[in-house]
């Protein structure tokens, strides 16, 4: 009874990807991938997604630590707020960033007036938009790793004379390293695919803010083979991400 809808569900998820692979201009692919437009978009995406992931690591790991370890009033609320970007439509995120950091934004107007800095529609804006939507992935993964880590290792390190900083550096972080790298990979994948927040906060200037997903969207009109080639690259990256997380996720169902 359930086999038919189950099969349909599977086909529904897999057939579009199959179509992408089948209809790809394989012969023209090498020349498409080295064309300047495609190369520029891919390079920009790589730089922005990597920078966004680093930004998320620098800010997200301490945030995860506070959520997992510190006990303060309103922690549940903070935790809920941190996860908002997960469910928020990315376009809304982009608009919100504009209202904060735009030239007339809450903070942006002072950045402009005092330092002459204007963030929107720059590569920096792309990185900020991507980090905004991707950071919750990292925070949740790292917080989970911290919660499931055996804190008695930290006790053992303390009895051996290690200060709190030493314990964090030599025991806690190495122990949760798998959780951090899984979170970083997820974070990177989410940043790489970011579209809505980026286009509304950073726009679409080739070489500056036009990342691969945006380039795909625009090329669908003007240059469909290029759009397919870029899509294939993004699909390839997704598969890589899945493979790198397989121990964590594909065996997760049996736990």
């Amino acid at each position, binding site marked *: 009874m359930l086999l038919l809808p189950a099969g349909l569900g599977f086909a529904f998820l897999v057939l579009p990807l199959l179509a992408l692979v089948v209809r790809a201009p394989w012969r023209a692919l090498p020349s498409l991938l080295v064309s300047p437009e495609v190369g520029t978009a891919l390079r920009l995406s790589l730089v922005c997604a990597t920078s966004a992931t680093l930004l998320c690591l620098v800010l997200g790991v301490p945030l995860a630590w506070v959520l997992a370890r510190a006990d303060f009033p309103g922690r549940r609320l903070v935790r809920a707020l941190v996860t908002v970007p997960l469910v928020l439509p990315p376009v809304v995120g982009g608009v919100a960033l504009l209202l904060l950091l735009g030239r007339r934004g809450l903070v942006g107007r002072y950045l402009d007036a005092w330092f002459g800095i204007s963030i929107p529609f720059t590569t920096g804006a792309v990185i900020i938009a991507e980090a905004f939507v991707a950071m919750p992935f990292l925070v949740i993964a790292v917080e989970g790793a911290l919660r499931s880590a055996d804190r008695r290792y930290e006790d053992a390190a*303390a*009895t051996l*004379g290690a200060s709190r900083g030493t314990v964090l550096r*030599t*025991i806690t972080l190495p122990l949760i390293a798998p959780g951090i790298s899984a979170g970083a990979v997820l974070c990177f994948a989410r940043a790489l695919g970011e579209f809505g927040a980026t286009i509304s906060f950073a726009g679409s200037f080739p070489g500056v803010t036009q990342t691969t997903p945006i380039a795909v969207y625009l090329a669908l009109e003007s240059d469909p083979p290029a759009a397919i080639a870029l899509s294939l690259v993004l699909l390839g990256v997704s598969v890589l991400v899945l493979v790198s997380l397989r121990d964590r996720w594909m065996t997760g169902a049996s736990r």
Partner: protein
Amino acid sequence: MTLEPGSPGLDAELVVDREGFTLEVSLEVGAGEVLALLGPNGAGKSTALQCLAGLLPLSAGSATLAGRCLDDPVAGVFVPAPERRVGMVFQDYLLFPHLSAVDNVAFGLRARGGGRRRAREQARDWLGRVDLADLADVRPAALSGGQAQRVALARALATRPRLLLLDEPLAALDASTRMQVRSDLRRHLDAYAGCTVLVSHDPLDAMVLADRLVVVEGGRVVQQGTPADVARAPRTDYTARLVGLNLYRGRAQGQSVDVEGGGTLTTAAPVVGEVFLAFAPSAVALHRDEPTGSARNRWRGRVAGLEQRGDTVRVELDASPRVLADVTVAAVAALDLTLGASVWAAVKATEIACYPA
């Protein structure tokens, strides 16, 4: 015993209040002395160790080690764990899984400011002392339980602590390795000059390893003394049931041991020199006539005491050596055991634990 001010010992009055549970235990341990906290699970033994380690603050009382106050809530003193000269071996050892054996042992030396190379050299030296020099570069996951225990011991001792804490040091081991690890551990404790407090729920471990026992029940000390004293005169049911071992000291030659105070016992494996022998009262069978079974230890005595404990009766025999036996109520009736009755005791050699004195 009382400690002079400034003596290298531990003097602690541990009081901890935790949700509906109060621990109140006084401990005095001299340098080189091994004290065992013995008690059922939930008696508060591990809590006491955590207080001494500095992982848990006292609610009241105080702890002084080698003349230095570590914790005194009234005076507002609390020395955190990293600043205490205390080493701890945890129940499941807690070797850092991402570090090799030698780096585990070197960890404390590094944390206390030693250089990397020197710390590693010393760590290798410590691993050599616990006979693990060839496993220095192995990760903890690849070590057997007994090996992991020795690495944990080396790690705790490497920082030269004044106080060594052992939390159920043998509980995670299977029976076959336990005997060997137990006698190794005793050798290392003998060589250690500081104070040792170990926690165990196993009376045999406690008696083999410790110079003095403190029996804790429900957060309070119910009895203390040398292992022999506690075994001979248990004061509570728990002590009687678990600690009420037959414990003897004697001189061994081959498989035969001449027991101090008279009598001879036969052990399963040959031993030499001064030894302790121990077996549980439940390992003793009583017979009206000389038994013909396989038990290699048989001797005759007179019933000197009968005490019912639940559905068993503890029988004390005036014999050489004196012995306690746990038998069923039915057996008491069948054997017609009354004060002064003459009976045979029988114990299999394999039931007797034997360890160097």
